[in-house]
């Protein structure tokens, strides 16, 4: 697989949310607004890239039977570093996203990529894989949150374009599931067409 193919796979072909259906919990939780989705997506991307690099570098050092605890320690450390650095230097973003940052630890995409890719591949492809999956995740969050914010609040990135309340249902959890289902159906259709 060429580096470019490796990079592009995360968006449609192996999109972590729509095709692999990983990390559904944060996906449904944060997509109530576009701003949250972008922040969550980019912080997850950072953690994915750094943890993939670290795990690809450490893979020969870690015995098979304790690999999961080791991966979790590495991932949790990076997440905490992101949390602290944001709190210290980017107070505004942190107050917006504070609750979602610790959630990245339990995001199965991060552990999933460490286990399925970084533990078997060398450094550079793992970094590209992390970037690809992270941006794919961001892309998925963006689609869901754009639909939900537009229908639920009549706004985009907080700018109202419809001056009414919107359909509250789409902000609530059931709306998330329904939008999620429709988008998965569309992506599946797209992937089938390509074959």
């Amino acid at each position: 697989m060429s580096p470019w193919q490796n990079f592009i796979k995360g968006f449609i072909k192996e999109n972590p949310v729509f095709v692999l259906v990983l990390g559904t919990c944060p996906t449904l939780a944060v997509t109530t607004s576009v701003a949250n989705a972008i922040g969550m997506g980019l912080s997850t991307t950072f953690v994915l890239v750094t943890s993939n690099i670290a795990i690809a570098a450490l893979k020969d050092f870690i015995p098979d039977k304790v690999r999961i605890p080791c991966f979790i320690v590495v991932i949790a450390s990076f997440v905490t570093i992101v949390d602290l650095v944001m709190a210290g230097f980017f107070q505004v973003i942190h107050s917006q996203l504070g609750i979602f940052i610790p959630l990245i630890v339990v995001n199965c995409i991060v552990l999933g990529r460490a286990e399925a890719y970084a533990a078997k591949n060398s450094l550079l492809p793992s970094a590209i894989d992390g970037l690809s999956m992270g941006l794919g995740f961001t892309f998925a969050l963006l689609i869901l949150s754009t639909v939900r914010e537009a229908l639920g609040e009549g706004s985009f990135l907080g700018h109202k374009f419809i001056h009414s309340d919107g359909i509250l249902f789409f902000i609530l959890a059931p709306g998330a599931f329904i939008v999620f289902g429709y988008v998965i159906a569309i992506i599946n259709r797209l992937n089938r067409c390509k074959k």
Partner: protein
Amino acid sequence: MSKKPSTFFNMVWTLFIISFFSSAALGFVYELTKGPIAKATLEKKIRAIQEVVPAFDNNPLEEVYKVDVDAGTLFFYPAKKQDKLVGTAVETFTTKGFSGTIKLMVGLLPDGTINKIVVVEAHETPGLGDKIKSEKSNFSKQFMSKNPSVFMLKVKKDGGSVDAITAATISSRAFCDAVTRACQSYKKELKK
């Protein structure tokens, strides 16, 4: 995948090394960010005080006094202009929020009227409960210039005068609970 066999010694040793380096890295980052975080928190507090009470020229952070209530401590920041009390910012809290503690800064005028309320810390559901924040909706603005002796600090569902946020009654109730706590203990302090 791994070149190292999973013997007992190898596993313990590897886990130890990884945990050791992770904690060292975290300790280092914590030390590095401790100062900026403390500074940012303090600045946030000063900004919150400035926002909720009329203009003042003293340093309310220095004249702070604490009042213990049922489940915690309230902080009173008296704002004075030329040694005359113009308002008190009360840092209050509630544990009845939908997710975790909510901390509010309630600005009270000397007669007990609510001047303005800002949210200091809240983890309510984004898009729903977080509308208690003034930048997200007008919910907290309905408390402005209301006196708790005539304005019932309860949502309308419970027989009060507060319009709750749609689909976020729990957050609205929690908000009222925190404001009530601030107003009641302020009243008690006045009587002393």
